[in-house]
């Protein structure tokens, strides 16, 4: 009797627990939480390793606001993510999609788990029969000739050493760039002759071309410091910052240049590109100005029109 009561109690408890889990799964989260959920899947472009949900940066704040606006308009999270991908590229996604080439990323763990479980089951099956494994010992114990084992060991050792040396030498050329000249150029020590802005810009362009955006930013910054009125330096710094995923920093760099030469389409383009993420309304205004002053045939016109169409949509 007591035992039956206990079983019944257990069943009731488990049923209650299932109901609680079901209820928790059904309740609809508030808008703020949904914003955070979407933002948690997007990278904060101007910080390292943080999602847009956690980052305190301005840009992440702007992204959250944008997500909130779009969610309120009834967009689904997937289309919002697509919007950000169009703007920043795939890198903005904190985890790759389950489709396409990255499907392997999602499938491989399952494969490994299945293989592991299969191995465990096989071992369990094999260990169950109690028969002394006499049959298996045939041949097992015959030691391979000592010399052959030694040779194989030597081959393995040589292969390991050769592989190590090869890896080390292969990695050297493009492994870690020697930062020394760049650093000395970016932060000239007292006593050394200061670099000319032009040579700095040339160095920055070289770095940029090599994909060293972070160091290019440093060099351009130094150039802007040396000649703050040079709009080319500002434009290059702004573009490099945008490429480095830090458009919010690019805006204050580019605005003085745009004030001084309000009709330079290149400056307007750079500023607009920076603003469109950090401050979309201002970005739309700047890009429209760009369309007004750009000479016909400017290569960016089509792209800007597309962005503006998307923005207003």
């Amino acid at each position, binding site marked *: 009797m007591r035992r039956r009561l206990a079983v019944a109690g257990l069943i009731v408890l488990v049923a209650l627990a299932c109901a609680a889990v079901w209820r928790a799964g059904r309740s609809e989260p508030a808008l703020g939480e949904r914003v955070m959920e979407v933002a948690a*899947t997007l990278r904060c472009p101007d910080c390292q390793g943080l999602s847009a949900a956690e980052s305190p940066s301005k840009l992440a704040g702007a992204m959250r606001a944008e997500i909130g606006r779009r969610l309120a308009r009834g967009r689904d999270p997937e289309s919002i993510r697509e919007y950000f991908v169009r703007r920043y590229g795939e890198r903005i996604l904190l985890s790759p999609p389950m489709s396409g080439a990255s499907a392997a*990323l999602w499938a*491989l763990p399952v494969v490994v788990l299945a293989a592991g479980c299969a191995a465990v089951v096989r071992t369990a099956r094999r*260990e*169950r029969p109690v028969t002394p494994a006499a049959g298996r010992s045939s041949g097992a114990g015959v030691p391979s000739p000592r010399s052959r084992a030694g040779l194989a060991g030597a081959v393995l050792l040589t292969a390991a050493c050769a592989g190590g040396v090869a890896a080390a030498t292969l990695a050297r050329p493009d492994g870690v760039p020697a930062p020394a000249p760049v650093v000395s150029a970016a932060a000239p020590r007292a006593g050394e002759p200061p670099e000319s802005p032009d040579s700095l810009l040339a160095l920055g362009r070289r770095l940029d071309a090599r994909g060293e955006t972070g160091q290019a930013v440093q060099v351009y910054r130094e150039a802007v410091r040396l000649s703050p009125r040079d709009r080319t330096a500002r434009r290059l710094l702004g573009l490099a910052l945008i490429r480095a995923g830090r458009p919010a920093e690019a805006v204050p760099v580019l605005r003085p240049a745009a004030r001084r030469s309000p009709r330079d389409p290149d400056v307007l383009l750079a500023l607009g590109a920076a603003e469109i993420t950090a401050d979309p309304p201002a970005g739309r205004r700047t890009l429209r100005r760009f369309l007004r002053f750009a000479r016909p045939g400017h290569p960016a016109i089509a792209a800007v029109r597309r962005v503006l169409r998307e923005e207003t949509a």
Partner: protein
Amino acid sequence: MKCLLGTLALWAGAAGSAVAALAWAGLAGRRTAVAATAAAAGGAAAAFAVLEWALLTRDFQVGFVARNGGRGVPPYYTFTSLWSAVEGSLVLWALVLTGCALVTGLGRDEGPHRRIAMAVLMTLCACFLALVPLAANPFREVAVPPADGPGPNPLLRGHPLMGIHPPLLYLGYLALAVPFALGVASLVAGHAGRPVVRAMRRWTLAAWAALTAGIVLGAWWSYGVLGWGGYWEWDPVENASIVPWFTATASLHSLAVRDRHGSLGPWAAALATAGFPLALLGTFLTRGGAVASVHSFTRSAVGPPLLGILTATLIATCGLLVWRAGRLRRAGEVPGGNGRGTPVGNASGDGHGTPVGNTPGGNGRGTLVGDARGDGRGTLVGDARGDGRGTLVGDARGDGRGTLVGAGVALLVTLAFTVLLGTLYPLVVKVLDGADVSVGPPYFNRVTVPLALALLVLMAVAPLIPPNRARPPLRRLAWPVAAGAATVAALGFGGLGGLGGSGGGHGPLPLVAFGLGAFVLAATALRVREVAGRHGPAAPVRASVRRRLGGSAVHAGVALAAVAVAGSSAYTHDTRGRLEPGDVLRTGGYVLRLDGVERRRDADAMSVAARVSVFEDGRPAGTLRPSITFYPASGAPPVGAPAVRTGPLADLYVTVSEVDPADGTAVLRAAVNPLMALLWASGAVMVLGALAALPRPAARRSRWTRWAQRTRRTRRTRWARQAPSVRTGGTGTPAVTVREDPGGSGVDGRETVGGQVR
């Protein structure tokens, strides 16, 4: 002078390591080998000491000090700045590695395995000790010493945990080198008996404890310094530490199973050897500059040589595994011998092995003699106590616990693989495709959380299965299931008390995690009661019992950690706002008032702090001072220092991201992070449990324990002579001496009987 001294010490260490490697490989006697090993450790210690000396005396002629020292840095952070950049980290790395090698070299003799293992270890030491002066010499002399240095990275000088977190993590990584070396030795030798398995177990457990402590303290550091309120972000450096942790956990469990079998199987060998190369890989990825991370504070030229060492290690290990692992399987399976006419398990001529462990019929696992030294229950007769479990015949249906442990190992390996895959994937895509892809928390959470939940179930159920039973006794699971279900029901319908401030819209996941946590805790409590009850009040004295209780404590710690992680990630809520003096910010029952802004200038730093008064339910509850500090000399961006008010249920976590001294406004973020204290406590429980389970090595045995053991041995020998089983085993006394191994035999009476039947 210090430059020369330090470089010389490093080269002396490298030379000592090379000599030791050759000596251990058989070119010289044991004395020479130990002396050379000690010389290597001495060289590394001297280099460490010289570097610390240079840092503390602020000798800017030394390159490392010129780059990482500073006159305004307080002494404690000057001391810790040794491991704030890659050159110094490598010196610490070499010191810990040679230290582990020396301890292994001085330890008990484990026959030919130890010689090979030591040769492997000393080769690694030689590589690293040569790598430091060649690729990243901290002692390079500066031609024109600067008057003052920039100081260490600002993030690395703001939290006292900097002093212990990195050394502990290094200890964890490098202690894994010993099981790695022993695994390589076993593969080379083609067989490994119980003493080798035990040594691997001991070192893996030690590494596990250090790694756990290092990881938890690292999470704490990141919570207390980085200021976004979280503690784990699946950042590459964090991943680099968790992957070896997963494999070490898996290895511990598979070694425990192999310990019962008395020999090292191929899977256990593979797992034991995997840990160290994975730690190396992580170090290469993060310290070599291959991936960017918030924790990798360096970019340097050690990448290529590190990659070289890593590749060589990987090729050698994988090659050995492919070539020799089959031999280990055969050695483990064939009872009585591997064709050379010697018993496999223990007969490696190591001074411990006696034929008894390998009496025909017992494949090194259960022996009749093993029973006799149990606790008086585990005899042939004693086990048939009529409780339906321990009878000789009825229960030998299969090894349910072994299968579940195997499934757990598979899960852990999958976890390690997933994290490694996610960390490497961006690199692979970058190389193949040139595209920038990132793999972040959404991926890791989605894949690892289900695996972790499954693991929780296994770690609750597996210890409750009596050895050699196929299935868990359902009746024993009733209480844990009831506890879990009651927790879920109470939290789901009754609300979450202090936790769920903002309603229950969080989805079912945290509820499930809480329920599973309660399930594991209840099951663990049951297990502890069982173990303690079986062995009486003096139970914890015995090594095997201590190990089981320690293991239970670790399981409880993991369950608590799961609860804390689920709670803190699901129920955090935060508020941000720009406040003027006198304004208030409300978050989860707290009211925060900005009283003003303070500015401070130290020797080499400028900081601004927001003075915030906290009110809890209307009552004043102290003042917090979140701050931002700027170190002009370092050229780095300013770092924020959050202010944390720790409570038993939830932390109040306040950061300031902007301060305008002109009008005294500040941008504050206040978050309530629940269960953080529980998370740190669970880390402590795990580490203490692991330390309790750690067997004391024989070399450190005091005279007192030796005496106590001698008396016990005599007593047991006398007792064993009367036991019928010994007569069957035949060899009597020597067997009993073997089993006195203070490494904690752990051969439970019942387990042995079952093994015997097989």
